[in-house]
């Protein structure tokens, strides 16, 4: 057991912190107010590896392990939730499936462009009628026509797509085969019949954009299939397992950012003759935040570590994401509270963080779904008598 990061990760952690402090933090407020990402900063990300965290070097990435990728997303989340969601979705949902299941030709065609810092990757699973229950609810379908697939349907809440040259889409390719009836396909965003609708009007994460998409007889060549036909649902589940670690890391980052704001404010603000940080009720919030962030981060690191070691990580990823998203909410709530009226003002970062954190309990599987996944795995372990260790 070793809780120390290796030298490479330590240096990387520090470099990302430095980058975020200089390039992203000063813009976070502007991103919140104007809904604009800081593209100058995103264009500087490739050399630090932030646009290709787990993409191989040959395609412009840096091939980090899951722990390194989680640390990067946490650090971005600490200063700017919008940028963090953008980069998390880009790496995990955008690049991840192409890296995992792409043919050499698909990787060569798309990954260098996606890691360049000029474009972003996206994945379309959710539909207006189905989010948690894709298996029964997802209707967008592809029908084979000679050397092409013809796609029809609607996807919803697709993050980053406005900047994507291509996106991965979960499609029903065989209505009769249940969970074996789905496939993933790459769809170029300039295809005829493909429409990106205006961005959703969100509660927070204002500079990250999610859109409704419609497919009206969109034709793609059969070579656009990503992985094996019929495997799409399982690819989706795997992608979400990975994504949960990333969203959990982002949650820890938001909590960390709010915590730092809270402690500084508490030391600065006086009431009844002394800094409010001296009041026990405020100290309880500070101590709780310190404890909960430590717990959440440790879970995220463990989930990442288990994945990197090739162990089963579905349950721990759900546990980590569930805990981290709850911690983000609690810490951001308390940070607003400690700020008093200032916390209710858009002039203070905690107002933004409180809004931003709300997604963490919804995206990459709602918290209800995390409870379900955890309990299902626990019951399976008990049934099979494998629950005893780790």
């Amino acid at each position, binding site marked *: 057991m070793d809780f120390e990061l290796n030298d490479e990760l330590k240096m990387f952690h520090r470099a990302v912190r430095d980058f975020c402090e200089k390039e992203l933090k000063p813009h976070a407020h502007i991103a919140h107010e104007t809904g604009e990402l800081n593209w100058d900063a995103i264009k500087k990300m490739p*050399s*630090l590896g932030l646009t290709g965290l787990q993409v191989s070097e040959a395609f412009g990435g840096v091939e980090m392990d899951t722990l390194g990728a989680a640390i990067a997303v946490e650090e971005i989340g600490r200063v700017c939730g919008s940028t963090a969601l953008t980069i998390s979705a880009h790496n995990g949902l955008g690049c991840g499936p192409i890296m995992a299941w792409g043919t050499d030709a698909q990787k060569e065609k798309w990954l260098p462009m996606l890691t360049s810092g000029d474009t972003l990757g996206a994945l379309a699973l959710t539909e207006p009628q189905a989010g948690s229950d894709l298996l029964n609810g997802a209707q967008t379908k592809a029908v084979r026509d000679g050397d092409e697939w013809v796609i029809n349907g609607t996807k919803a809440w697709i993050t980053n797509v406005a900047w994507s040259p291509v996106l991965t889409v979960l499609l029903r390719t065989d209505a009769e085969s249940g969970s074996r009836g789905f496939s993933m396909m790459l769809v170029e965003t300039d295809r005829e019949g493909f429409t990106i609708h205006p961005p959703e009007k969100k509660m927070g994460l204002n500079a990250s954009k999610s859109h409704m998409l419609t497919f009206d007889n969109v034709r793609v060549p059969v070579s656009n299939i990503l992985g094996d036909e019929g495997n799409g649902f399982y690819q989706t589940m795997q992608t979400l397992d990975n994504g949960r670690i990333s969203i959990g890391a982002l949650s820890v980052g938001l909590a960390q950012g709010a915590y730092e704001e809270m402690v500084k404010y508490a030391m600065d603000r006086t009431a009844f003759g002394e800094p409010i940080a001296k009041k026990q009720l405020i100290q309880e919030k500070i101590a709780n935040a310190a404890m909960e962030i430590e717990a959440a981060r440790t879970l995220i690191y463990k989930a990442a570590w288990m994945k990197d070691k090739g162990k089963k990580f579905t349950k721990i990823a759900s546990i980590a994401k569930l805990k981290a998203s709850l911690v983000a909410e609690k810490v951001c709530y308390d940070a607003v509270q400690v700020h008093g009226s200032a916390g209710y003002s858009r002039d203070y970062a905690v107002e933004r963080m409180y809004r931003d954190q709300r997604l963490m309990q919804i995206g990459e599987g709602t918290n209800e779904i995390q409870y379900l996944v955890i309990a299902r795995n626990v019951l399976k372990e008990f049934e099979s008598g494998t629950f005893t260790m780790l």
Partner: protein
Amino acid sequence: MHIVTFTRSTPDTAAKVEVDGNGAVSWGDAATVVNPWDEYSLEEAIRQATNVKGDTTVIAVGGDLHNDSLKHSLAMGVKNAVRVNADGLDMTDSLQWASLAAAAVNNIDDCQLVIFGKEHVDVGSDQVTYQTARKLGWTMLSYVSEILELDAEGGTIKVEKTVEQGKQILTAKLPVVISVLKGINEPRYPSFIGIRKASKATIPEWTPADLGIELPASSITHDAYNNPPPRDITSEIIEGETIEEKAAQLVDKLLEEKVL
């Protein structure tokens, strides 16, 4: 051509630095950072070496605290790093520091240009830059705001210097020691590939014996140090109906206090 630059680890500017009665400086558990001025000299060394297809080495003088900054330099893209240290080195004795620095530069083949950051932020001084140049017997050009031309074959360097009244353009024969200002470039961030390499690098350490010199005895003794008396600050919020009224009051007060 070989371009040499220097760096050192200094307490983070946000850290609370304390000086005790003997002049010893401490900053608790706070992290150190690359001397902020060195970001520019490191960047400039990398750029100039790329232009003249030369080599780069970054040197730190002192204990292994400075390895972090050397590794940061490697991660930015400087090719070699070395630390020079000596038993009994007094880091506050700039002449000792410069003696080691100059001997290290002399130990590197074909070095024609040494680039320093404007100053060391921890001690708030730049005298080591001049002393190193003096020890080397090289020309010193301080406060360079732009290198206009580094002519390796002709053996000259043309620079723009910022002086109090404006800008000065100078050409000097190599070898030269320069110190560079903030605006000279936009320092790059370490690259991930650089980090991967730097994190695995072992930093060689040179001693005076390796450099064929003896550390000159320190001629300084620290007799006393007194922290400045704490300042008594009171703040006052100016009330008034309009901004103009408040501004007028502020000006009156500033005049009263002889600030204006």
